[in-house]
């Protein structure tokens, strides 16, 4: 079997695109959707880069490389913005997912995203506005 070197990476890219797409549609947690989106993007880059490597060429084509580098930087800035948004969303009492994901009051995800053990190390205080509100209520009590 004489597989060209780009072939496994092209197939891997195609697989990543499918995985990311599934996660984006089917995972309720917003953090997971951001991961899935990044996986999908990485798959697109990998497929693109692998396809650019086909044929009889002595070195990698610089144009796809430049486009992929641009893509990676744009992806990280979009990820930073998206993460800031989901933290703000949760801070405003919005929860881990979006409200529109509950058609007709869907079931809670009982198992949740994390096991209890992982939570042990985390700060339980509520920063920002909610903490201040809690303290006011505490003082009133």
């Amino acid at each position, binding site marked *: 079997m004489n597989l060209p070197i780009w072939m496994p990476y092209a197939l891997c890219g195609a697989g990543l695109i499918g995985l990311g797409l599934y996660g984006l549609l089917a995972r309720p947690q917003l953090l997971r959707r951001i991961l899935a989106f990044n996986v999908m993007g990485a798959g697109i880059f990998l497929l693109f880069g692998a396809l650019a490597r086909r044929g009889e060429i002595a070195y990698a084509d610089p144009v796809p490389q430049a486009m992929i580098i641009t893509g990676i930087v744009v992806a990280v800035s979009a990820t930073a913005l998206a993460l800031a948004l989901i933290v703000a969303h949760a801070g405003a009492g919005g929860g881990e997912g979006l409200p529109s994901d509950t058609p007709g009051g869907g079931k809670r995800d009982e198992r949740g995203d994390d096991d209890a053990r992982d939570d*042990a*190390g985390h*700060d*339980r*205080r509520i920063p920002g506005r909610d903490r201040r509100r*809690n*303290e006011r209520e*505490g003082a009133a009590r």
Partner: protein
Amino acid sequence: MLDALTLTLIGLGLGFFAAGSVGLIRFPDSPSRLHALTKADNLGLGLIALGLAFQVPDLGSLLKLLLVWALAIFSAGAAAQLVGRVAVEPDDGLPDSTER
């Protein structure tokens, strides 16, 4: 001759990596796993870098090879301290739920 030396050293390096991952699977608790890991894999990296040092074409690459190893050791030292602290004392001891 040099090739044989390179092959021996990178083979040994792989052996240390393998030992580190066996430790990662077999050791019973986090601190001992950390103990096995940080030593074995940085020694493995060092042996591989040393082995490849016989193959580099210029002095710049040789210095880079050394710098990579030095950085990896330094980072692993700090990382092991920090992770070890979390492993030994995962709860931060804050009066969390009892506070209010």
